[in-house]
């Protein structure tokens, strides 16, 4: 039981990242009709917002300490971050320590801006072009973004730890009479994702803006005929989608050290998630994200692997996502919640 509870939590956690990226992809696809292969790159950029902030707060004053030597035998250069100089060790260290949560504040405007610029500068010109062109140009953009990040930050992962308070784990199982400890930060990640997802849904559901956008997603022309500037709203939605991906990236950094190709690692999986959920369906994207996350976690359990090995399917964890995608698409032609006629031509 403990093991199952743990794997459900793991699944929800993995699913959170899938769901957030898939949600953004679907928002962009549903509003603008654009297949955005650069969405993984936006996730990665979010993560690098945290890395940049980390580098920024670590900018240091260098003093020479003759009592120590560096690896070449020269006097050691001691670095003291300016934030510590200015605010004293207590606040300074706290700022450095709370880098990741602070990065959220920075990431929101930055990602909104990046999304806005991307849409106005590039994507806008591709609305009427075939999906293949959209894929190619956004893929090209993803490579460019990725390589620029690599040129700046290198290819190795960069550790960006969570604040000290959140290091360690919490016995979630104790709440229901089991014994299952789960890391704090992963719990926070899940809660944060749930918050973001529900705010996006609430925003679409309860605000006038959201209602117009939803109406536009269903029938763009009619809403356009009503004299509403739907394009402008869709541009904003692109920014929001970029921000969602970015926030997913920021919060993900303490879970796994970010590197420049983390976006590509998620991209293909997110597309599978979107399609399994059904192209254009927001609830579909979110539920497929969590579903695949949980299935992936269960597939990695020794018992499950052993069971499938008896069925001559060794290493089920390698293929589970793709296998599920195939089964879902063959039994439900348009994914779990897809609408007819979307992207089928």
């Amino acid at each position: 039981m403990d093991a199952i509870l743990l794997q459900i939590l793991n699944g929800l956690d993995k699913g959170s990242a899938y769901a957030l990226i898939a949600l953004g992809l679907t928002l962009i696809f549903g509003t603008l009709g654009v297949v955005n292969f650069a969405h993984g790159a936006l996730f990665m950029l979010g993560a690098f917002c945290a890395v940049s902030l980390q580098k920024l707060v670590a900018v240091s004053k260098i003093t020479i300490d003759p009592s120590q030597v560096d690896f070449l035998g020269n006097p050691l250069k001691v670095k003291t971050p300016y934030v510590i100089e200015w605010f004293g060790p207590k606040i300074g260290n706290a700022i450095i320590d709370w880098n990741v949560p602070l990065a959220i504040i920075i990431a929101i405007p930055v990602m909104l801006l990046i999304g806005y610029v991307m849409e106005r500068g590039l994507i806008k010109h591709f609305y009427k072009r075939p999906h293949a062109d959209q894929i190619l140009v956004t893929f090209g953009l993803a490579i460019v973004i990725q390589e620029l990040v690599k040129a700046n930050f290198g290819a190795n992962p960069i550790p960006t730890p969570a604040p000290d308070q959140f290091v360690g784990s919490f016995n979630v199982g104790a709440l229901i009479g089991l014994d299952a400890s789960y890391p704090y930060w992963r719990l926070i990640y899940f809660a944060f994702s749930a918050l973001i997802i529900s705010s996006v849904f609430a925003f679409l559901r309860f605000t006038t803006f959201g209602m117009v956008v939803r109406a536009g997603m269903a029938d763009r022309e009619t809403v356009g005929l009503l004299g509403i500037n739907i394009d402008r709203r869709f541009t904003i939605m692109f920014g929001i989608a970029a921000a969602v991906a970015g926030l997913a990236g920021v919060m993900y950094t303490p879970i796994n050290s970010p590197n420049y190709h983390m976006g590509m690692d998620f991209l293909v999986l997110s597309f599978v998630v979107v399609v399994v959920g059904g192209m254009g369906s927001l609830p579909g994207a979110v539920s497929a994200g969590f579903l695949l996350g949980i299935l992936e976690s269960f597939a990695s359990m020794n018992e499950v692997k052993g069971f499938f090995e008896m069925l001559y399917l060794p290493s089920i964890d390698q293929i589970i996502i793709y296998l599920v995608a195939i089964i879902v698409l063959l039994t439900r032609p348009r994914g779990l919640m897809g609408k007819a006629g979307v992207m089928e031509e």
Partner: protein
Amino acid sequence: MSKFTRRGLIKTSATVGAGLAMPTFITSPLAAYTNAPTGGSVTLGFNVPQSGPYADEGADELRAYKLAVEHLNGGGDGGMMNTFSSKSLTGNGILGKKVEYVTGDTQTKSDAARASAKSMIEKDGAVMITGGSSSGVAIAVQGLCQEAGVIFMAGLTHSNDTTGKDKKANGFRHFFNGYMSGAALAPVLEARYGKDRNAYHLTADYTWGWTQQESIQAATEAKGWNTVNNVLTPLATTDFSSYVAPVLNSGADVLVLNHYGGNMINSLTSAVQFGLRDKMVNGKNFEIVVPLYSRLMARGAGENVKGIFGSTNWHWSLSDEGSKAFVKSFGTKYGFPPSQAAHTTYVQTLLYADACERSGTFNPCGVSEALEGFKFDGMGNGPTEYRAEDHQCFKDVLVVKGKENPTSEFDVLEVVEITPRSQVEYAVDHPMFAGGALGKCNPGA
């Protein structure tokens, strides 16, 4: 239209005619071996990952190569050439020819690596290929060099197979291997953690992972450890939480992570997040072991590596003369200490050059003969020997531990023990290295 065509045609045929009239057709001179250098220079091919997850490692390798070329051509402070026990290198290139080099991108894919190596051989006339930072790539390129008739001086490759079942006469490996990691680590682990331990292995599900796991399992079991489980993890895994979570309830008190690179960082991070290191199991502190460490990659795991044992080929904090000389010239040139990848590739270049000098030729068969059974010192790691039978280098292996109080961002690992060479040696026909044949050296052409 017709006018234009006719004029065009006349013009073209005139050019062709001129081309045919001019030529002095010379087919390439009959050479004894592939890419025999003819002019005043010799070209080496540095084939390293420049894109993909190991790009930083590749960049460090490339820095070391450039340094080695500089030293061979008489520039800089000469680095390890001054401490190297063989004194045939004099700083006037190799056999009097200036050393030039070409670089390529392996992309850490065996296919791309071979394409890149082929272009070096076919287009640039490289007479030796070196580099790489994964066993798959090393074995693939080693096979190519064997076929093409050039020498391959392997870079980072840790799989037993490189000098085991996939060994080739034209390929040489300076780096250590999975077996040696196990042999070096096991006594240290026994001393620190005791005889009565239950180990749980997480292993990258491909050839290197398997051989690494096999080696460390055998070595620790010989010390009395019990292996609880070995779980294979897919290469593409980025989040290891679902593999780490079951470890606690398995009854194991040691977790061995047979992962490298990004996989290692992520699995170690997950394991630490799940609080494994704070747990007591069977009345003992729970421990994590990472058999193969790379300083560059360990940095990516940040705080999480502190106090965790592993093995490494070389480390810049070594205090022998060779290491000191290398760290000095590398550090002066680039401003930070070299990684083990840089050390390996630097040494490999020097060793190749030296073998050419000693044999008096670039012919792969001559070079190979000079390297086989070659004993040397002064290149870090103490007295070293290239074994003739499998072209594996035998030298001391370092057991390291994540440093508790690093003084700089490069100061991630500390050397716990230098395991003497005798302890990590094995017979040529050891079962983990069986199968495959070295074959004969191939000079190509």
